[in-house]
């Protein structure tokens, strides 16, 4: 068994939102009691639709946001209350890549400086060494050394994402939080970046927290998967279990809704009624009960407990408790 890198316990994040200009403040529970762990070298995916809290969870783990309650442990070290100064040395181990490669790179900084910036912060390398390392990193992510003097606008989306990855891996992190890293890319470029991420994982033993709404991509890249709905994790399982025997009605509906690139495959589709409710005013009990095809009386009253149905397959649904 590989070691646990990150452990998250009952994590919550509440934002205060105002309804209208003069309206009174309301609580938006973006993340509502989330627990999971990431092991060294694995890919854990957080998958769900917009507003489910997957990106917020990613940001909480890196302490880019301060959690409202709960605990985050990195290699058994509780970082929940760490200040920015205390976090700095830890950030070497935890890097992030973002969805939009166009807005996550400073347009006025040359590629060589973009990539060597983390080295400047986290190591005492000389400028020259930094640049050498940056050039080597460019080659690792599949770009030419000649690109060192260029600016971000001279690159396409896929190339920029590669630059973002080069920058993130420059300090040899243990964990990379990847928030929708391929969603903004064209299909043919998407697979290039996914392959690169898998190669790097093999070579460097990186762990990924892979945040995505794309269930096909998640199946391809994950070791384990957490399915989120309105701030809560409804199901956690290994990839094979989750895609082979999905238990939660939401997971099943989600999987059945994905259009499959095979015109001869005829599949049963579970069409969910209605929209995703607003997280400002989530439904009572199990917050999926308003759209659930298997809703019973208890579902609107009691929040279901998370149960282990075997092999670490966790599900939060009254059907299984």
């Amino acid at each position, binding site marked *: 068994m590989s070691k646990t890198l990150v452990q998250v316990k009952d994590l919550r994040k509440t934002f205060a939102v105002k309804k209208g200009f003069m309206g009174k403040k309301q609580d938006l529970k973006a993340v509502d009691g989330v627990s999971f762990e990431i092991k060294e070298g694995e890919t854990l995916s957080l998958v769900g*639709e*917009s507003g489910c809290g997957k990106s917020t969870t990613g940001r909480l783990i890196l302490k880019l946001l301060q959690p409202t309650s709960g605990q985050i442990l990195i290699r058994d070290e509780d970082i929940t209350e760490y200040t920015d100064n205390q976090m700095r040395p830890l950030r070497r181990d935890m890097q992030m890549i973002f969805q939009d490669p166009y807005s996550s790179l400073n347009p006025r900084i040359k590629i060589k400086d973009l990539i060597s910036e983390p080295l400047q912060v986290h190591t005492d390398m000389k400028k020259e060494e930094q640049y050498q390392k940056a050039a080597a990193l460019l080659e690792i992510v599949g770009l030419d050394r000649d690109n060192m003097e260029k600016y971000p606008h001279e690159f*396409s989306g*896929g*190339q920029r994402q590669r630059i973002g990855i080069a920058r993130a891996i420059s300090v040899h992190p243990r964990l990379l939080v990847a928030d929708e890293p391929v969603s903004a890319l*064209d*299909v*043919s*470029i*998407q*697979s*290039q970046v*996914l*392959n690169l991420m*898998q190669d790097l994982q093999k070579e460097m033993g990186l762990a990924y927290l892979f945040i995505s*709404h794309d*269930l*096909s*991509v998640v*199946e*391809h890249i994950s070791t384990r998967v957490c399915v989120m709905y309105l701030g809560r994790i409804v199901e956690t399982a290994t990839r094979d279990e989750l*895609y082979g025997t999905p238990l939660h009605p939401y997971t099943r*509906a*989600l*999987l*059945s*809704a*994905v*259009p*499959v*690139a*095979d*015109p*001869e*495959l005829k599949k049963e*589709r579970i*069409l*969910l009624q*209605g*929209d*995703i409710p607003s997280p400002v005013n989530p439904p009572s009990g199990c917050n999926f009960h308003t759209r659930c095809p298997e809703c019973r009386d208890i579902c609107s009253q009691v929040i279901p407990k998370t149960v282990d149905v075997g092999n670490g397959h966790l599900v939060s649904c009254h059907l299984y408790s």
Partner: protein
Amino acid sequence: MANTAEKILEIKDLKIEFVSKDSSLTAVNGVSFHINKGEILGLVGESGCGKTVTSLAIMRLFKDTNGKITQGGVYFKDQNITTVSDREMAVMRGEEIAMIFQEPLTSLNPVMRIGDQICEVIRKHTQKTRSEAMEIAKAMLMQVGIPRAAQVLQDYPHQLSGGMNQRVMIAMAMSLNPQLLIADEPTTALDVTIQAQILDLMRRINRDHGMSMLLITHDLGVVAEMCQRVIVMYAGRIVEQADVVDLFKSPKHPYSKGLIHSVPVIGRRADRLESIPGNVPMLAKMPEGCKFAPRCKYKMDRCEKEEPRLFMVDGGRQERSCRCWLMEEAVI
């Protein structure tokens, strides 16, 4: 069978250029295809391949840009609509051909109630009174599966979700009962479960009203589920045209092959995804010869010099064609 079907729209040798003071860029070149009555035709390709520009050309929505159709024509029921007057075209838009877009929220007027927006369309094209139009609007909203239709008529777009707004767009597009619907990435901005609802709705409209559709998308899954025939575009050209089953089962063009094999498919595990090396060429720096040659693993010497034409595949059965020199021998 496909040959006897009635063509609702035919595009012949279309060339679209964007002209500026000192240069001109060709966005679409030599594109010809047709849509049969009652079918859903898919137009796939990656960003910059010219799929959206083609759809804008059909609707003649170039007015505020410097885009121009410099060659070829668009025939709607045998009438060349590139040459009709602006006034006639304005009538056709909505009554004959309607369009929905990727971002419903930016296509709707944010300061106008939903009901008024749909009424505006209906009253512009018919002699209906406001209250008659409102009744039609309400019926339309109910038809596209909006609950509480009466209340939604009074709402503003920002009060509705993305999926709801897209339903409103579809209701508006359908309100004049057009014969062709052009849908440009209609579900790309929506969540998976909402996308499934909208696709289901579109399929129902196609079946119940016999409405023909041109579905523009980059999502091969959507194509596989919705379309009967597919056109694959790359760098402003059609590279392959095929029946949907044939395309996914045995793609002929190296680009279509690469595209189909580079997307992960649920339930079909692969250790590694195939990928197409390199990037889509920029309009200003188009390679000579075959536009895909720089990224193609089957590249031959002649590919860099001569651009292949569309060759018939399988003796032209199923109207299958492919723009690749490898297919030259297949010509019968």
